[in-house]
């Protein structure tokens, strides 16, 4: 019981510190420190409850056990990461997003196609596309090609809808100005339409990072070679070694956050002019 009380006490203390910190004039350091402290306090709470209530490690392993397992099986985790993230998710992400981007630019020329494709695209983006996974695994085989195909299908429509919306975002005045300059189609596209579409395009790119990871992992449940994060998760659950599963989840969380963070960073560099990026 002491574990539980100790954990609760630490949690309350950290929470009080956070409340005090939130009152201070915000700066960069504090903006990072507050969520970090909160996350840390959750970990302590988790560890304390698992130990205090004697929860079986088969149900919920404590963070310390997960950390030990994580550092102990680096090579397996790396192999799975390469198979699922680099080969499956990343290649599918690049293919899917560029295909959607090119389609959007091509469609943008025709008002008729645009008005037809937008509602359909919006509809398809809301569908449970992950259900396509068994079919695509059947078509492309068990290796990473089928995973990349699932990712392509999953990211295509959200990306398409966002890019098409973005290419519509320009002002009429700006458009008229380009016309008075006598700008050609390509000049118009490169100097006005695409830069104006960038906030939307990056919104799509950011949404697709998580979708890509999910698609690659879930499609491994329908058949995969004996490596990969989805494969490892489903087999280790069967063997009840949950610390390994949590280690994979940690990898997935880090990979997902890093991928998202990278896109947000590039966005900051490209769309520095947008109101949402100004200080």
């Amino acid at each position: 019981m002491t574990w539980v009380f100790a954990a609760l006490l630490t949690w309350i203390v950290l929470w009080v510190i956070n409340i005090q910190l939130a009152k201070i004039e915000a700066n960069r350091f504090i903006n990072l420190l507050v969520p970090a402290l909160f996350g840390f306090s959750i970990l302590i709470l988790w560890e304390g409850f698992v130990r205090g209530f004697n929860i079986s490690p088969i149900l919920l392993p404590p963070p310390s056990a997960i950390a030990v397992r994580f550092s102990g099986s680096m090579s397996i985790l790396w192999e799975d990461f390469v198979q699922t993230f680099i080969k499956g998710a990343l290649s599918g992400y690049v293919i899917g997003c560029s295909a959607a981007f090119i389609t959007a630019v091509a469609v943008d020329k025709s008002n008729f196609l645009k008005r037809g494709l937008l509602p359909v695209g919006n509809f398809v983006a809301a569908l449970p596309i992950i259900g396509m996974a068994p079919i695509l695994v059947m078509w492309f085989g068990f290796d990473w090609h089928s995973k990349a195909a699932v990712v392509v299908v999953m990211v295509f429509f959200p990306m398409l809808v966002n890019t098409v919306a973005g290419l519509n975002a320009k002002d009429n005045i700006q458009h008229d100005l380009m016309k008075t300059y006598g700008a050609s189609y390509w000049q118009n596209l490169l100097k006005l339409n695409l830069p104006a579409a960038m906030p939307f395009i990056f919104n799509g790119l950011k949404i697709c990072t998580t979708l890509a990871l999910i698609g690659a992992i879930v499609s491994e449940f329908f058949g995969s070679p004996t490596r990969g994060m989805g494969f490892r998760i489903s087999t280790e659950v069967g063997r009840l070694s949950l610390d390994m599963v949590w280690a994979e989840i940690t990898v997935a969380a880090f990979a997902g956050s890093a991928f998202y963070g990278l896109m947000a960073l590039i966005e900051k560099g490209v769309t520095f002019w947008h109101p949402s990026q100004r200080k």
Partner: protein
Amino acid sequence: MNKVKDFWSLIGPVFTILIAITAIWYASAVWLNSAWAYDKAKRANVTISFSEMVTDTMMQEKPLLPSPHQVIKEIYKTTVLKKVTSKRSLIWHGWITLSATLLGFAFGTALGILLAVGIVFSKSMDMSVMPWVITSQTIPILAIAPMIIVVLNAIGVSGLLPKAIISMYLSFFPVVVGMVKGLRSPDQMQLDQMRTWSAPKTTSFWKLRLPSSMPYLFASLKIGVAASLVGAIVGELPTGAVAGLGARLLAGSYYGQTIQIWSALICAAILAASLVAIIGVIERITLRRMGIQI
């Protein structure tokens, strides 16, 4: 005459795209299934003409890509012709998925609104919780859904609840983000007005912040309900293909029943579309009664 023209300019493009998709579907069905058709003919030692090949690709039992009318026939067979209580009825499976979706969606919406209210009223909660809410979505929950199901099963929680929890996890995020934006949407002038009336925080919440957040709430609910359907379907995968649309998908992929996979998929699509449409109708009614023009 003008009305017809207006109607066409609204529906026409969508209609054209849909016809194009159906045409592409038929063409790829012929293309993908032709190998099997030729293979069959070769083994029977007959040569088949192109038109015979095309007819064969339309009616194979386990085609690589079933043609649309095969899927429609299968859906008709498993919804209208089967009794609702039958285990082979898609309506029965659809209902199981739908109930988990709705339960998870209700949980997710409640959690999302509660978190949003907390975030808007407490600065420390805003600073400490909000980053983690965003981080939580970069964790592929769908990927760990099987584990959640198995673990909850081990402690005796089974059936609807584990699936609903996964749906909740997926649907609370859009609600939090939308509601925080919505509750903060009243501008400074309106907030000052409340202050000059010396309204307490609760009053300005009920009379100003909450009403002005409604358009944002409904926009997020539409995203949330689609997400929670995905969650419920994936949550059904690891339970060993017992019941639900996800189970139909898994069973279909085990036995190569492509027609069954596609009919489950189309049913899920119809379900998602109707759920979003229902929320759209509620949105229209609510906003109209509030006097917001849309």
